[in-house]
């Protein structure tokens, strides 16, 4: 079923939003709303059936995306969006499951799930909004905070090394890895569309400003200044070795599609194994509702 | 079938647990009584010593463990050394005679011995020694009907090994019937033990 409105007089994003929940909680200049715009654009472009999408978030500023999109959406616990999404996908393989969360949620408290989902090649589309900091809780150091940046918990500057997320998920086995900034709205939308067409673990990192906590504390200006900064510092490096795309405080931001490869996803492998071992005894999970379930309620 | 506590002990790979499962099944499913089986778990249960406890009764079993076994089936020397002292006064001890040397045992205990491993090897597969032991147990204890245990054996082993295990059961059972006709072996074994000391 295709239920996307393509009418130029309507804000293309609005149809994907719970307008009764506006205004949202995000600060002026925050990049998360921009990513939702690109996500909406991708929904239009990819023509994916909206009923088939389940969007799962963890906790944090980006975690609130689940609450604003007019989709089946789950705001789960801190760090656990990926395992929740894994359960959804296994119980109903027909779903297009999107995980939409922040860098702290996905790579710190949820880091173990991130690498294991990539290893399994679970068919999930992960959108990681990376604002380089813990924003919801007030600007603490994240595993992604570049060295020397100032945070509320590293008031003299961070000194611990940061994760290079594309390298992490590439090494763990993701089949699609891209990075853009919130300046690259069209490229981001295209990457999300490509992820929808891909079977397996896709990871799209979006470098996004937190003017209130990261930019202000590091004297990087407001939202607009950050757009200029992203424009100036970004360099498209499609296919770049992910080991070379790590971020620094004021250095180049490598963007582009770094990884796009084929590898059988978890459910394809599972099916093959069961067919081989069990033959006709294997009964595949289809995601169809049990007939009894529909008639026996009430 | 009054409340009877049984311990079966040996080492890993002898089918200790399977023996207990067969006897428990026979008691609870084919004789409509009650049976509770427990076993030792954990690192101590890997390889090495292996032991299971079986309580059978004609009323529901409450306490799941043996306190002082009425019957003990011992298939290794280590198990004998560890558990033999638990046996109830007047209790019945069944041993694999080539693997267990009886010593330090009170005269009131009845000891029955069978070369189960040798019989199993003669039948072609050492691993059926547990079915030989189960057959012997059935004849010697008369706790369960041979028919019930036979069914439980058939029901507990993979179909491809069913026939062999049933043969092993019959071998042990027949030997047990002969031994019973001759009376307990305790005195002779004790004589051996004394002679060796």
């Amino acid at each position, binding site marked *: 079923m295709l239920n996307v409105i393509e009418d130029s007089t309507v804000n293309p994003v609005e149809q994907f939003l719970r307008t009764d929940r506006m205004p949202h909680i995000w600060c002026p200049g925050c990049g998360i709303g921009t990513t939702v715009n690109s996500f909406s654009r991708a929904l239009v472009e990819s023509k994916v059936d909206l009923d088939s999408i389940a969007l799962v978030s963890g906790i944090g500023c980006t975690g609130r995306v689940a609450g604003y999109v007019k989709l089946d*959406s789950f705001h789960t616990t801190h760090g656990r969006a990926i395992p929740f999404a894994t359960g959804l996908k296994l119980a109903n393989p027909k779903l297009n499951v999107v995980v939409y969360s922040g860098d702290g949620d996905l790579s710190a408290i949820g880091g173990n799930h991130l690498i294991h989902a990539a290893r399994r090649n679970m068919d999930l589309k992960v959108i990681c909004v990376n604002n380089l900091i813990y924003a919801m809780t007030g600007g603490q150091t994240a595993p992604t905070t570049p060295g020397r940046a100032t945070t509320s918990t590293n008031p003299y500057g961070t000194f611990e090394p940061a994760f290079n997320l594309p390298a992490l998920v590439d090494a763990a086995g993701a089949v699609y890895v891209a990075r853009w900034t919130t300046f690259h709205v069209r490229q981001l939308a295209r990457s999300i569309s490509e992820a929808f067409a891909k079977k397996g673990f896709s990871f799209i990192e979006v470098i996004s400003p937190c003017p209130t906590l990261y930019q202000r504390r590091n004297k990087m200006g407001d939202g607009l200044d950050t757009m200029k900064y992203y424009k100036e510092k970004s360099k498209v490096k499609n296919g770049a070795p992910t080991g070379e795309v790590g971020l620094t405080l004021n250095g180049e931001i490598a963007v582009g599609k770094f990884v796009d490869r084929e590898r059988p996803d978890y459910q394809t492998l599972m099916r093959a194994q069961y067919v081989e071992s069990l033959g006709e005894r294997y009964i595949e999970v289809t995601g169809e509702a049990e007939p009894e*379930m529909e008639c026996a309620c009430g | 079938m009054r409340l009877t506590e049984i311990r079966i002990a040996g080492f890993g790979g002898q089918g200790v647990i399977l023996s207990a499962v067969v006897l428990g099944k026979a008691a609870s499913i084919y004789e409509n009584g009650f049976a509770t089986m427990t076993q030792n778990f954990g690192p101590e249960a890997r390889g090495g010593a292996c032991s299971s406890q079986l309580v059978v009764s004609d009323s529901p079993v409450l306490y799941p463990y043996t306190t002082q076994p009425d019957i003990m089936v011992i298939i290794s020397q280590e198990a004998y050394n560890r558990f033999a002292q638990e046996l109830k006064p007047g209790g019945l001890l069944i041993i694999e005679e080539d693997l267990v040397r009886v010593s330090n045992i009170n005269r009131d205990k009845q000891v029955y011995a069978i070369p189960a491993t040798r019989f199993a090897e003669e039948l072609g597969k050492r691993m059926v020694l547990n079915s030989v032991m189960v057959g012997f147990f059935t004849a010697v204890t008369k706790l369960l009907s041979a028919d019930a245990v036979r069914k439980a054996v058939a029901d507990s082993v993979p179909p491809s090994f069913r026939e062999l295990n049933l043969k092993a059961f019959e071998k042990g059972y027949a030997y047990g019937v002969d031994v019973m006709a001759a009376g307990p072996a305790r005195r002779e074994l004790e004589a051996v033990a004394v002679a060796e000391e």
Partner: protein
Amino acid sequence: MKADPRGVLTGTHFIDGDHACCEGALAAGARFAAGYPITPSTEVVERFASRVPTVGGSFIQMEDELAASIALQGGVWGGAKAFTVTSGPGFSLMMEHIGYAAMTETPCVFVDVQRGGPSTGLPTLPAQADMMQARWGSHGDYEIIALCPNSPQECFDLTIKAFNLAEEFRVPVMFMMDEVVGHMTEKVVIPAADQIEVVPRKHTKKSIEEYLPYGTNGDMVPEMAHAGEGYKFHVTGLTHDERGYPNMTPATQDKLVKRLQNKIRSAADRICLLEEDSLDTAEVVVVSYGITSRVAQRAIDLARERRLKVGKLRLITAWPFPDKKIADLASRVKAFVVPELNLGQMVREVERAANGKAKTFAVPHAGGGVHNPDEILNAIVEASRC
């Protein structure tokens, strides 16, 4: 509705409690489980992993218990009946997600095969020391249901009950086994599928326009929709209104949290399964649950041989606690004797509910084995003299 015959292994079996629990889950319609290996519970999911591909479901071994306890809830919202299985240390890790299930009203079952603790404790030996954790382990106010089987047969029967209660009340149900019950092997009779009642998901029949995800119609249990059906609903662990939207006000909190509590408390009489024996004539009542109830029965039999007037109250349902039953008994009996494989957990509830009207004698045991029936007998004798 009757059980789906594909999941029902009808027949007479000689299996342990862990395996019986798995068969109960399959009979109840569980088609998804996420787990992480931990002794003495792993046999449940090992069997599930082997059986479920042939009945139209799946099992996944997750990277830890945090993942397992939330993946199962993803499975539920994807349309499956789902559960996870663990023991002490893993149960500790799952606590946040018990709260999430309670808050989001995700029907699911957490099986805890209790072993000795704290910490790594006694991996292969029994305890009943997670009883308070099952009730209060997650933060905030919420209610759960907890069942305590005392035999492999009950591991089968009550697992079905656990799933049925979970679906009826949209609540996480704790299935509180212990190592002895999990690992003991006994006869388990599995009836024909058409003899097994299963409660289907309380799925909404409302249209997409009419559907209010957390709206209720008097029975306090909202109707569910599944992902992918077009309802485009929102689920959150935040305090939420009837639309499921976050609404962090004291008024919404009060309404929501009280409903989560009342939907269970108001049905407590129906949820509380008890086994009673000679309570009418008893002077002393032994209150027990799980494996300890079997050991206690031996002590009760010995006490009756001494002509002591002893009654038995077995808590098949531990949570919600049968307050009314204990209060009623407290007004008629001298004392309660409460043996349990912990240093005093449910005994506090008995004491609270008895409210000073009858004495309470704890028979604690730190775990690692079961009571010697004589310890319980001695407490009965002492209680009879009071």
